[in-house]
């Protein structure tokens, strides 16, 4: 795995986000994906390469065509990154609420 590629970097780009949104509903070939963008085909290929390297999408040969699939497990990883941070604040705020309820009743 290329360590330079992290998922956050991958989803930081609007074109790559659009590609992911398209692939969430159906698997597509590179050509079909590229036809949705005004940008040059090699640019779309580069985006697909980055998405593949960080495992947000997977390539699969189907007959003569190479199809791109969305990988929901990797997407979940992004949510998991954020979850511990959210949880930390959630716990702190629960404590705040408890402390202040106790303060009020004093």
């Amino acid at each position: 795995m290329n360590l330079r590629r992290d998922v956050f970097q991958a989803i930081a780009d609007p074109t790559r986000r659009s590609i992911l949104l398209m692939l969430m509903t159906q698997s597509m070939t590179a050509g079909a994906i590229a036809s949705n963008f005004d940008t040059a085909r090699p640019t779309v290929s580069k985006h697909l390469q980055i998405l593949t390297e960080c495992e947000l999408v997977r390539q699969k040969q189907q007959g003569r065509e190479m199809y791109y699939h969305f990988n929901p497990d990797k997407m979940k990883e992004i949510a998991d990154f954020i979850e511990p941070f959210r949880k930390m604040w959630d716990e702190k705020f629960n404590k705040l609420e408890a402390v202040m309820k106790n303060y009020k009743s004093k």
Partner: protein
Amino acid sequence: MEQKTKLHAEDGKQELTITREFDLPVDLLFKAYSEAELVEQWMGTKVLKLESKKHGSYQFETSQEGNVVFRANGVIHEFIINQKITRTFEMENTTFPVQLEYLEFEKLTETTSKLTMQLVFKSTEFRNQLLKMPFAQGINWAHNRLQEIISSLT
């Protein structure tokens, strides 16, 4: 079930927003942020200094088994009772640059309120780095991070 504490971190933006609705009147929520004694109780940290006023400053310190494991400080730029606090936040002895925090306190009903914390970082990379830190042990990560830095130096 809808989560009480929500976190919003938009891709490619160097900020993140945390919102939370409290089962508390707004003045009590605000007090929890402006009185040292109360901050200590819910943050689980020692408050060395907290001057709750415009141009005031603050410093927090967390110790474990007699050792200081975390220290943070900042300056308060805006302090409007029951409405908002704007302050900087700096973790001492870490590689994280100072961040800017906009805290907005909102009255929802007589007994409920909402807090919106907007944190602004020096770069998207620093924001992501902070998000990716292992936060499971709460604030202790700062200690681990420090140890990492120290052991990478030796």
